[in-house]
């Protein structure tokens, strides 16, 4: 009997939380991502690490969002969940109107291929493949795309990022900035709903980093939805909206500043106590 009541409550909660996203979607038809109470816990050698502790996050179509926060605050974990590379321990996640939190590995792969474009800090191009082949790669996992269409779309994508002249080069023959441009082209080729960029300038010098950021801005102007994780406050500020993460939770800017100040103070006190000792 107790079990039945528990299940009934579960259903009610499920309907309630689901209706929130539905309502939001109804309120704004541009809502692309809706995350509710997302939690992620890692268990390693009997140690429990709470990477995300109840994230609430909406991303509208065409929005340019940056996620910032100190190291270990859960930025990359959140991006992995957003990109369906990982599943939340708890919580609801709707992407483009579909529930995606509990999908099978294969279904998540299909959605990832269709809806998400990744840009990584380390570029993550495949060394054995030429530039054009790297860019074509997401389309090779999409059924019904002909070889010609793949090639055409990859060329178009490379032209958008200004790398069409290097299509027969291998990644190792390109500079870091060029490799990241190719990575952007690869992220764009499948015409995804959202681009997820994980520290896209992290491995670049400032000049190349700025060029990549300008490229993302350009893409956004043409309607791309972008969610970027970055350490750099200058680049974070280039986004329309900034999300601050601290200890696995979304906080507002003021709270973030307060928490940072508090942490700085603690560090100073500890240092002083250490010196006096």
């Amino acid at each position: 009997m107790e079990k039945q009541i528990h299940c009934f409550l579960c259903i009610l909660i499920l309907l309630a939380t689901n209706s929130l996203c539905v309502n939001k979607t109804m309120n704004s038809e541009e809502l692309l991502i809706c995350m509710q109470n997302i939690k992620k816990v890692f268990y390693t050698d009997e140690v429990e690490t709470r990477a995300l502790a109840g994230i609430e996050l909406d991303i509208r179509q065409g929005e340019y969002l940056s996620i910032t926060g100190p190291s270990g605050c859960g930025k990359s974990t959140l991006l992995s969940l957003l990109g369906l590379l990982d599943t939340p321990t708890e919580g609801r996640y709707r992407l483009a109107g579909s529930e995606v939190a509990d999908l099978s590995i294969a279904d998540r792969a299909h959605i990832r291929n269709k809806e998400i474009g990744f840009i990584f800090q380390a570029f993550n191009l495949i060394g054995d493949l030429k530039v054009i082949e790297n860019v074509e790669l997401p389309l090779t996992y999409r059924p019904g795309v002909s070889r010609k269409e793949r090639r055409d779309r990859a060329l178009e994508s490379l032209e958008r990022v200004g790398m069409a002249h290097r299509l027969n080069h291998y990644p190792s023959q390109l500079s870091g900035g060029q490799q990241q441009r190719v990575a952007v082209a690869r992220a764009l080729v499948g015409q995804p709903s959202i681009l997820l960029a994980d520290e896209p300038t992290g491995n670049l010098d400032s000049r190349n980093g700025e060029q990549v950021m300008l490229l993302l801005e350009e893409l956004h102007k043409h309607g791309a939805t972008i969610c970027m994780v970055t350490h750099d406050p200058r680049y974070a500020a280039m986004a329309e909206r900034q999300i601050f993460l601290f200890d696995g939770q979304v906080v507002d800017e003021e709270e973030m500043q307060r928490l940072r100040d508090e942490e700085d103070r603690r560090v100073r006190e500890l240092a002083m106590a250490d010196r006096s000792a």
Partner: protein
Amino acid sequence: MQDFRYAARQLLRNPVFTIAAILTLALGIGAVAAIFTVLRGVVLDPLPFPDQDRLVRLTSPVPGIGESARWDLSNAQYFHFREHADAFDRVGVWQITGQTAQVSDEAIRAISAIVSTDMMALLGAQAAHGRVIGPHDNRPDAAPVVMLSHEFWQREFAGDPAVIGRSLELEGQTLEIIGIMAPGVRLPGDSGLSGQVEQPELWTAMRLDSAGPFFNSHVFLGMARLAEGVSVERAEDEISRVTARLPEVFPEVYDEGFIDQFGFRTQLTPLKAFELGDMAGHLWLLFGAIGLVLLIALANVANLFLVRVEGRHRELAVRAAVGASRGAIARHVLMEAMVLAGLGGILALLGASLGVRLLVANAPEILPRMDNVGLDAGIVLFVVSVSVLAGLALTALVLARYRNDPVADVVGGETRSATAGIDRQRIRAGLVAGQVALALVLLVGAGLLIQTYQKLGDIDPGFEPEPVIRMQLHLPNAQYRNHAAVWRFHGELMERVEALPGVVSASVGNPLPISGEYLCVAQDFDSAIPADRVRNGDETACGDLVVTAPGYFETLGIPVLAGRTFTHSDLDHPDTGAVVVSETFADRFWPGEDPLGKGVRPMMMPGDPPQYYRVIGVVGDVPEASLEGPKPAAIYYPITPKPGEGLPLNPSLNLHLIVNTGQAARLDLIPAIREIVQVLDASVPISLVGTLGDDVADSKSQVSFIMTLLAIAAIAALLLAAVGLYGVIAYLVARRTNEIGIRMALGATPRRVERTVVAGSMKMVGLGLIAGLLAAMLLTRLMHGMLYGITPGDPGTYLLAAALLAAIGLIAAYLPARRGARLNPVAALREE
């Protein structure tokens, strides 16, 4: 020394790699060393005769009698060559026979060599005690003398040196014991006939008279030593001219018509080639096959070694960065490779020692010179050389991979790409493809031989060997001087043996099927047609002569196709002249005719006037020397010839007693049979006791021996290739973890990841299969002489072997691919 310590420490830190590499090297080098030991002992080592490279065997091919008819020498040829062949330094002839010796009042069957002048010098014979047979002992009027073999002397006279000067009774004749042969002195072998020649226990002097009489009876085995500086070809030219003069010098023995009609000539064959026959080629083939296993093992270790060095590329780069020269780094690598190869070599020696013992114990009897096979310093040197070469090859491969500055490998773009460099992948893919190719060659070779063996097993031998016991009886000439006496003894023996419980039938005869001892004797016919065909050269006159008694065909299970077989009456009344022929004989000489009642007799048979035997029956064919070999055109004469005539055989005939014991050979009856012989005549020794089933198995033993070793090599190759393939693919998957993460991030499903990894791996396998098929097509041609019922290019075998390897490649690729597909993409993306 510091490099050695460092290498040893590095290897100890990675015990799994070290043990795997050492065991793989030990397997490859040990197998090669074991086969090389056999190859060296049997093929490469010189024969134990002085100036052995100048020794030749002398035979007389007579293609007009039969394609493979190869006679030995006549006494006329012997004296003719001694007198007129300048190409020869020395010429010798010998006969080997079983003789009955009386030792301590007991009749012993001893193998006896009767040797001519010069044989002692040709063999390099030395006496351990007393003296060797000298030229004066070979004079026709010389007192009969005998030398004892060392083993016979030890066995029968307990090594008593006082035996010198005593007398020994041999076949009723008294001979003086003049010496004990030094251990190891032997006669040349003859692999072409019935396997290893039985080595003599007694040596007696052949007392031929150069004044004659001479006979066209080719019963002397001959050899010669070429004069200094004379080649075999030059000697053969001269001997051809000398042979052509035989009718001129010995008109009573040879006429020109005979030489022209039958193509009679004298052939010289280097002694070692004669003794080894096909076996040399087969052993080289086996050595090549095992060499392929070594290459596969080396490829495996090279892959492991590359992986290991790559795992240390940062360390090597740091060394380079702090000033280590390329030479110093090469030394590190070389030392590690040498330690591995050295330890592998030591283990290989132990393995080879065990392998050689197993090979010697299981080698077929027809494999000559196995007593010369053993490990020694030469083999140790061989193993050391192969190990050093293996170490150098491994080092060269690693250095080729790191031909660029190692610092650049680390500081350069390696961190930017998600997979191993193209160069490295090509080296590994090449090694894997090479392994697959070599394994396929071995699999095809083994497959062809296995099918040959199966097809040999499917051959209907034409008789029923399984239930037949056989033993050879040696009736002393002195007591059994005529055929009637021989028949009386055997008739009585057959009757008593048949009365034993469990015996279905018994008979005697010589030769037996599959013995390889059929004697080709030219036949003469009463009707014009076969005689004309022989005269016109359309057909040879050869009939394979068998002497038999009643019950021979029934005991052996040879089917009677027409007429009847011998009865006791035919032998009791030989004047009726009954003869039985085989199907092949009948088809050859009376095609389309009824052979029954036709007249035939051995050509040049002594006796006057010649009378023909009449064919009373036709029987099925039986194999001559091997199941797959030709069927003799057999003509079965009774052991009692027509009165006033004599078959060209010794009356005592050394007949084989054959006993059919129903479903299977009842070996438990042998003591009872021996007792019957003993009771009938205690002076009759028995030899060659066994079963015809064993003879049939022995005829397949060479194929079975090579097949077994090749199958073992193929299985080892298959396992090594599978392990190598798995190891490389597992490593590549590990190296491609980041790439797999990227692919997953871009939307690749687990199944797609599996497919990608497997497809990439199968490309390597496919490349190897194509290369292997081409190599197999070339290399299996070398097996042509070993195959039966299947061609070297048999497509079924190739397809099956390729499919088997592809399946194994698929499994080896799938397992790591599945593991790759189960990677957590987030973790995979973090991998460098």
